[in-house]
């Protein structure tokens, strides 16, 4: 039967039969690299078009609708434009850091993709500290942003990068604590274990109140981590004209732009995995007939459906709320989100010990 798991398994066996183990592993690496880059390109295409269409619908207008049927090829046209644009490097920049910054942000986005399960038994690396790996590596992207702001030799970029750095570092705490709530309930950091533990129902239904609180805090914290509105004053157009990536143009700007959207996809994928069950279809504990019907829908469709639902919610936030000021943003984190998530962690531990969840 056609499924990602079967395809990857058969390619794997064919490679190991035909070539020597080292060569087979190297070819596998190459295939994975090409798949990841292809995934990025397609994700960029789809997400940017989705953002423009969703924003247009909320603003009582049509989105892009000229290039291709329903505007499907708008992003292709945009990418072509960005590729042929002149990439100017201003004078007096720190050349090495200026050129390195976009690549760091992209590489972090690519590395985080490794533990995520896209379909049943289909992931690049099932490491036993899956979630910890993701949280740790995503912190490295702050370095890329600060590099971009510093190396641009522009006081606006520096202001924007400093604000952004403070924001990301603060909100990682709340996001981490919400993730910990699920880890406490599951008892393992491994992604496949977390998903398998949701066999009889997603955690958002099984662990009731504390998991719902953790979910809401998670969504708010990751919106702030990816510099999306309403927390986007690092790129606030009406205040600081594009913040830390003001001086970038051409392909480097395209890399920043793409990395932001891929980051949104990744954090929504993590949210879907932890709270909504990843590739696991909707099961209720004992209703076996219902579960069998749900199993007919392929697992990759479940995964992408949940992720795109969360992406829609994050885009919904952007077009509804005004922007927060930097001190209000940090206020929100340190005085509201962090105490609530710490209290929530205690609550979830009590519930896990006493087995008060479904």
């Amino acid at each position, binding site marked *: 039967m056609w499924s990602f798991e079967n395809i990857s398994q058969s390619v794997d066996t064919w490679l190991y039969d035909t070539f020597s183990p080292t060569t087979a592993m190297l070819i596998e690496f190459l295939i994975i690299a090409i798949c990841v880059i292809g995934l990025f390109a397609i994700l960029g295409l789809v997400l940017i078009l989705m953002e423009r269409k969703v924003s247009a619908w909320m603003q009582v207008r049509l989105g892009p609708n000229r290039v291709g049927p329903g505007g499907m090829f708008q992003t292709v046209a945009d990418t072509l434009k960005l590729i042929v644009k002149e990439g100017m490097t201003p004078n007096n920049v720190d050349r090495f850091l200026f050129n390195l910054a976009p690549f760091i942000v992209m590489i972090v986005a690519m590395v985080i993709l490794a533990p995520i399960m896209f379909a049943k038994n289909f992931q690049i690396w099932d490491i036993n500290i899956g979630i910890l790996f993701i949280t740790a590596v995503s912190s490295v992207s702050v370095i890329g942003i600060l590099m971009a702001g510093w190396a641009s030799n522009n006081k606006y970029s520096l202001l924007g990068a400093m604000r952004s750095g403070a924001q990301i570092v603060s909100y990682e705490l709340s996001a981490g604590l919400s993730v910990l709530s699920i880890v406490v309930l599951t008892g393992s950091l491994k992604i496949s274990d977390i998903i398998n533990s949701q066999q009889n129902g997603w955690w958002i239904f099984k662990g009731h109140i504390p998991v719902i609180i953790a979910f809401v805090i998670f969504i708010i914290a990751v919106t702030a981590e990816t510099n999306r509105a309403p927390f986007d004053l690092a790129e606030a157009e009406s205040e600081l004209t594009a913040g830390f990536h003001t001086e970038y143009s051409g392909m480097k700007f395209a890399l920043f732009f793409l990395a932001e959207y891929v980051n949104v996809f990744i954090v929504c994928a993590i949210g879907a995995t932890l709270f909504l069950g990843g590739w696991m279809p909707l099961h209720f504990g004992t209703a076996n007939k219902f579960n069998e019907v749900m199993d007919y829908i392929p697992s990759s469709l479940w995964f992408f459906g949940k992720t795109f639902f969360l992406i829609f919610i994050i885009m919904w936030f952007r077009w509804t709320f*005004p922007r927060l*000021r*930097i001190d209000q943003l940090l206020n929100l984190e340190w005085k509201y989100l962090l105490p609530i998530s710490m209290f929530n962690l205690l609550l979830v531990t009590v519930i896990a010990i006493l087995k008060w969840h479904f």
Partner: protein
Amino acid sequence: MRHLYRETQIISINSSTTSPDVEGDLVINVGPQHPATHGVLHLIITLNGETIKKVEPHLGYIHRSIEKMCESLSYRQFIYVTSRMDYLSSHINNHGCAMCVEKGLQIEIPSRAQVIRVLMDELTRLASHQLWWGAMTMDVGALTPFFHAFREREMINDIMEETCGARLTMNYMVPGGVMVDIHPNFQRKVKEFITHFKNKIGEYDELVTGNVIFQNRMKGVGYISKEDAISYGMTGPSARGSGVQCDIRKLYPYEVYDKVQFDEIIETGGDSFARYMVRMKEMRQSLSILEQLIDNIPEGDFQAKTKAVLKLPKGEFYSRIETARGEFGVYIVSEGGTTPYRIKFRSPGFSNLSALDHMARGGKIGDLIAMMGTLDLVIPDIDR
């Protein structure tokens, strides 16, 4: 003489590159091209970290010497230029000029023309406040209300297009009344608009006013006390947010304003949120004035009979009118000829802008943007 000219030139070059008074302060330019200044406004801000220490506006980027131009235009011709000063309340500006000329000629306006003028004024005030709401929320960061506001403003623009012929710079008021009679569809369309907008204004409050993020952005920001507002000469909704009673429609009623029922909205908060609430409530008051008048337009002439060539007697004449931004004054000095000797326009934005420095000290850049939004500045009005 030439030596003096060169000295003044050097001074003006130095003042545009202000050096900070204290070591470590940052001096940045906001504008003249900037998405948040509504027009070409050049602000030089001295910052300490993120806190503002001084704001210096530099004006004149859109000065078109309108007052000088009016000295060569006759009394019928100079009215169209004032549409282009504060283009969002163009009817009201034209009305002010026509009132001043009528004061000089001492002619009576038929009541039908008075009611039509007031209807057009209130529609313009509504349209201006709608655009203010959309643009201000866009500055603060919410990008959706802008489009919703323009959807309602389109209905008003369509009404204007049908009666006056133009959508933004309607040259519709003439000394003596209005230029042409209202279109037969005018009453029906205004009634449709009133019912439509009454539903939508609740949506405005749901989307923006009650939102916790928006309230935190606006409350406590840009405080100015009542005495300071009076001393800076602020008028209009910006001053009424600080408790100053300055609505010209109540203090010196003109046309039919003494015969309609409406409230003068005063808030005592003095901060940006109070100014915001003043304008939102004024929109509702304008709707109620429209409702009261739209069914009661008296029959009669739409223009008083005037001579073909108007000549004001020798003397000085001043008239004031309440635009969407504040008190607009027209001061004509006449030597008895067909063109005025000197015209001076008192623009509301100029005095409101002068209070920006006082309000912005101690706040942050985000606060400055929110403050400029609630002051409702239209730069061509300031720089005539």
